[in-house]
């Protein structure tokens, strides 16, 4: 499996974990709130599943937007193409010694930290997106509670 794809999948898995943790934290109080009356109780399953789906989609959206991390070759290609060739009449600059190729261990460390930074940037956006949707969902639940929660009936807890 290419390293870029692995990094992307790790990011998706971490976003899934964030959504799952949020769901586990929020579901017990959500269940108690939906036990207030029978109308809310019948809608409990729908809102619980919707909540999980919204959190999951909100967490995955920024990672999909970010895409897979670019390979080092892809990163350098446009710069190399954009660099104009020196004209023959112009005086040639001093020959610059070619940059020494990084040794394999340094290259591995570079790739690892680049992958970590890529995931970190993605997770920052994940937190923002999840926060926004969490706020929206709290508003939805507040409206639901304000309209239905005050009404108690026999089947309610």
């Amino acid at each position: 499996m290419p390293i870029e794809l692995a990094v992307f999948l790790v990011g998706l898995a971490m976003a899934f974990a964030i959504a799952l943790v949020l769901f586990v934290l929020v579901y017990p109080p959500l269940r108690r709130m939906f036990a207030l009356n029978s109308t809310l109780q019948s809608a409990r399953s729908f809102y619980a599943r919707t909540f999980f789906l919204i959190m999951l989609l909100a967490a995955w959206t920024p990672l999909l937007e970010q895409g897979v991390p670019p390979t080092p070759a892809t990163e350098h290609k446009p710069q190399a193409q954009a660099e104009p060739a020196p004209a023959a009449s112009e005086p040639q600059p001093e020959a610059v010694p070619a940059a020494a190729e990084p040794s394999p261990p340094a290259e591995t460390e570079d790739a690892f930290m680049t992958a970590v930074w890529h995931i970190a940037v993605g997770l920052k956006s994940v937190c923002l997106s999840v926060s926004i949707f969490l706020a929206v969902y709290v508003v939805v639940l507040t409206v639901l509670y304000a309209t239905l929660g005050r009404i108690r009936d026999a089947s309610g807890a």
Partner: protein
Amino acid sequence: MTNEQYLVVSYFASAGAGILLAFLTALFLSGPLTRALQRVARPLASVFRRFLPSWLILAVLLGFLSVTYYDCSHGTYQEIVADRDHLVQKNFEQGADMTWYLAAALAAYGLVLGLSLLGGLRAAPPDRQPPASAP
């Protein structure tokens, strides 16, 4: 696979995957939705059940179609097709927009469903109304 073939395949595959995701989401929610709509009047409940898949598919399509392949450095079809990285990036953007619109559509649907539950509670017959609180 040439870039042009990749463009055609990935474009329609993205649209298909988005529609499939919306359909599966609607299927995943259909059971709980039926239970939630037990207290809602039958015609309105029927409308709500039929409305959910169409609503989600339309939201996903809206997200999919909101992505354009043209930008500052890709003004023509030839420039777009020549850049494979650009095509891949646009595929990811389509996926991101589709999931974002799907999440927003679900939140909006939840809000409207809550209002319909309120309507159902008010329209319920007197024996199903909550008892008045004792003094």
